[in-house]
């Protein structure tokens, strides 16, 4: 994914964690850019799934 602030490209799992101990909720699941720490929304599972289906199709073609 691409950071919405600095444009840094990184994998979702590379993002920094930090809000897991937020007292008001169980963490907001935002993905923090490893370079600038801007909080990016993660890709929803639905869209990730769709992308996977499409890329799989492309490969088989």
């Amino acid at each position, binding site marked *: 994914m691409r950071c919405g602030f*600095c444009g840094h*490209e990184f994998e979702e799992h*590379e993002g920094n964690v930090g809000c897991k101990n*937020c007292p*008001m909720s169980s963490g907001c699941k935002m993905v923090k850019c490893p370079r600038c720490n*801007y909080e990016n929304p*993660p890709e929803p599972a639905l869209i990730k799934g769709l992308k996977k289906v499409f890329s799989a199709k492309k490969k088989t073609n």
Partner: protein
Amino acid sequence: MSFFKKKGSCHEAATVAASGAKKVALVGNPNVGKSVLFNALTGAYVTVSNYPGTSVEVSRGSTAINGEEFEIIDTPGMYSILPITEEERVAREILLTERPHLVLHVLDARNLERMLPMTLQLIEAELPVVLVVNIMDEAARMGLEIDIPLLSKRLGIPVIGAATAKKIGVPEIRAAIAGSSSCAVPPFTYSRLMEGDIAEICQSLRGEYILSKKAIALLLLQDDAEVANLVRETEGVWFPGVQTVVREKRFERRESFHLDLSMERKAIVKGILDGAFKAPEKRVVTLAERFSRWTVRPATGIPLLLIVLYFGLYQFVGVFGAGTLVDFLEGKVFEEHFNPWIIEIVKLYVPWGMLQELLVGEYGIITLGFRYAVGIILPIVATFFLFFSVLEDSGYFPRLALLVDRVFKTMGLTGRAVIPMVLGFGCDTMATMVTRTLETVRERVIATVLLALAIPCSAQLGVIMSLLSQTPGALLTWGVCLLLIFLLVGLLAAKVVPGETPMFYMEIPPMRLPQFGNVLTKTYTRMQWYFMEILPLFILASVLLWLGKITHFFEKMIEAMTPVMASLGLPKESAVAFIFGFFRRDYGAAGLYDLQTKGLLNARQLTVAAVTLTLFIPCVAQFLIMKKERGWKVAIAIGLFVSGFAFGSGWLLNRFLLATQLL
């Protein structure tokens, strides 16, 4: 530092990892597509870990080419082999300690001239370099022509044209990795004076180094402390001799060495690119580029910012979202249809009065909590996050950071603080957490105060704007008040909290038209997150308020706050909004919305209440985060200061408005 030990030939220097794999280091500026290339090369098996003793993360993965295993290392972004940031230091250390079999320097074809000096440094250090000119597709679109073979001939190293995002050039890169690497011998020289200086220092160096002596000499001349230490260790008794030569040379140049060297490197790059790089006669300045320049210059950037705020925030979020949409959802759907219907149903099936009250009473879970959350807050945050995602996807935020850097400097902050401030308009709680990324404690404290005080969160902002937009004078007063307070408190804080303002440097990604899919995805995700977070809180707040009501505690609190409200010139009912506001900022604003629709506030009272409420105590969540990030003492101090300041400002504003009869 034992890593600068003996250097034989490059082939000897190439190490073999514990697993037996040769190492390949990806180096280059940020934003040149290094990570994309890394992913294209490595696939699934990737480990990310902090570089020992630092907070810098380094990714490693492996790939097999022609049956041989290679370890790929994605180094942090670096601009030069002379490190300034911790990231650059780590990147250089990887080059030195891990002795890669191959160094892939990835650069952006569109910024070839600016990035080639680092290639020169890598060649000069006699590292086994392969140059990857990335983003060739974009460069071609801009009309730039790059003669890759000629570039390769002039640099004396393999050069590969690529567009890694489209997987173009990846097979060639894999082939280069599998091929035998060779030491580059620099085919370029500096001025006679410079070469003379370098030669003298090289002669005084007797030890063996991983980097070429020429590179070591240049780093010494540039006053690189790490390299100086290393040379001290390696040279032992000979070090004072080296030091004398270096000092002499530096003195002759009156410390202008950095500048001289970078000028010479630029000239060399110009020579190399002559004929190998062609920009179109009339360079195609894309609209995005022109626009990008306008956004960062104060003369055009500030008006542009105001236009963005007016159309995005005022018209779209304020008038459309908080006006039209809320009128429809809250006014029509809830007040006219849903609430009467649910009240009837509950009254019919739930016999117990207390429970009726809890569900559909004045502060009922459904009639208040749910109505606020869905009818008022949801349309506002939806439009806000849509606007926010459009700005985000266009690449506007880093430009905003540059634009405000100057103003922020006077407040002891840098443009970097834009990240938490911008996030604050979404939710102050998460923004407070993000302040930990600011460089100095001083910056963090100042940013925390400003967030707690003067940055309203999205929902609060939307509600307040929709309320005040009905009386434009009120909106203007509110805006001016907050801006003044923001600047004033910032300036004061910078005076009170000791320390220096750090430097701010930022690489700006290209501007682009927001992509519809991206914007929708981001908006959807943010809304989902927000809604999931607020709904339980709104329900909890409803329960607490209901408890307060049946135990009459709530009335006593309102009673207790009546004098405070009176001193602000507000009716006692407005205490409710402030009590709501402590649960959540947006809840308080929604309470204000209710009061206004009931016709309890005139323009002056509305303005005073809005200003006080915006400044007023951060919500519970934000307070807890402040405590967590800054500790009890600072959090309580900020909380007290903010509350006092809010009511003080409200009082002052009320006096002012009464005296001037402005509203």
